[in-house]
């Protein structure tokens, strides 16, 4: 695929905007076709207190493959240092070449399942972060520059369906006020100080912070702050 050729955007006309889950699936499928990729998986990663949890937003991996590869390996792929941030050249992971460190067995499983070359891409949709895994059965088919452009397009497109993403990912369960209070906690302010800043009573601040702690199922303020920062909420 040459980089100059096809406009990779399936929803080329202005009228065609993404609204439903079907639209999103259709968009990603068309994106894959235009690139020459065989499969996609769009995931959100939630940092729990003890482990990373993967939420699959959309995917055309066969069910058995998802099961066999397992959520922990998907998280590993998505969060690997190789996952390209926007603006950096994406580097594929070639599982057929049995890369050192991935584990021969892990690489073999991925290769057998038709993920011989995997691009792990970070997506920023506003402050929310997602990961897109694009894979092809034969290494070397995808053009890195095209992949980067697709990555950027995806960020634009996903911005049209925030409710859809939020419903799957539930990355930010906090209300505005709770987020605000937690932000000031992370800046080292005490409840009394926050009460002064926001012009409410100290008890109200404590209530907001406690709600935030409960929503993250954290055991105290420090953990709630850590969880919120890791998930890009504050």
């Amino acid at each position, binding site marked *: 695929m040459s980089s*100059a050729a096809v406009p990779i955007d399936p*929803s*080329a006309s202005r009228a065609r905007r993404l609204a439903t889950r079907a639209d999103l699936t259709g968009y990603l499928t068309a994106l894959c076709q235009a690139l020459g990729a065989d499969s996609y998986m769009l995931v959100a990663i939630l940092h729990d*207190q*003890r*482990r*990373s949890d993967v939420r699959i937003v959309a995917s055309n991996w066969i069910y058995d493959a998802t099961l066999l590869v397992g959520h*922990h390996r998907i*998280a*590993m792929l998505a*969060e*690997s*240092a*190789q996952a390209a*941030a*926007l*603006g*950096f*050249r994406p580097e594929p*992971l070639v599982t057929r070449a049995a*890369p*050192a*460190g*991935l584990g021969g067995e892990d690489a073999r499983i991925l290769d057998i399942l038709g993920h011989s070359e995997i691009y792990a891409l970070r997506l*920023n*949709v*506003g*402050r929310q972060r997602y990961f897109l895994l694009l894979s092809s059965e034969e290494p070397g088919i995808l053009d*890195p*520059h095209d992949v*980067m*452009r697709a990555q*950027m397009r995806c*960020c*634009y*497109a996903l*911005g049209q369906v*925030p409710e859809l993403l939020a419903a799957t990912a539930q990355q930010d369960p906090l209300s*505005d006020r709770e*987020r*605000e209070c937690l*932000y000031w*906690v*992370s*800046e*080292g302010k*005490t409840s009394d100080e926050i009460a002064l*800043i926001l012009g409410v009573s100290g008890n109200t601040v404590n209530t907001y912070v406690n709600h935030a702690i409960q929503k993250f199922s*954290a*055991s*105290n*303020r*420090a*953990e709630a*702050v*850590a969880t919120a*920062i*890791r998930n*890009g909420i*504050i």
Partner: protein
Amino acid sequence: MKKKPLSAFTQRDHRNLFGANARDGAGDPAASIPEAVQRCRWIAIDIGAAEFGLFFVSPSLERARLLSSFDSSFPRVSTAAKFISGQNGEALVKHTRVSTTPCWWADADTSAAAARFAAHEFVQRIDELVPGSPGIAFPVFADRGQCGLVVFLGHDIAIEAEQILDIHARCFWLFNAVSRLSVSHAEKAPTMSKRELECLKLTAKGHTSDSIATSLRISVHTANQYLTNSTQKLNAVNRMHAVAKAIKLGLID
């Protein structure tokens, strides 16, 4: 399962895909603000913009403001940048928190620019940000959760359909370089001992001093001492602050 270090993954590539376009050859991260300004100027030249600016979105929700990092009049601050970081930027800040789509504006007089912008698929029109000049703003995000905007102004801005993706990617790259600079300027990562980091990590996991002491097999007083030390080294006022700073500096993950 905790993610384990994968040697195949650790070779993070900092090469800039667009180094060649930016006429810089090597493509190392911009090492200083003047260098970043220079790179931004190259982007501006490539799209025919007269002025440019890079802004950080302040993390506080109370003050929904744009903080100017640099602009085309560097080291001074241009009038346009003052407009953007003033009241006018508020709508743009809200947009940046939820969307990555570029925004453009134009007054009725400059319909040529408006027509060019409107031809793009995904870009959004917003209210005029700087009076008298059309422009386009690219939302950008960096590794540690910072977000910002790279803004270009000028009557002759022309970006082709596919080119907008490359330009936006270059803006992302630039913002990453600048945000890394400002972190290292403001607060150099302090040297922490292994034990101090361990205690801080456990605190971030919600452990109390008591449970840290038990799991590390040290006394509560020692655990507290480690935490006090790390809080001081991070120039933080309490543990929550220290945890927040440590995560933002990348000392713990």
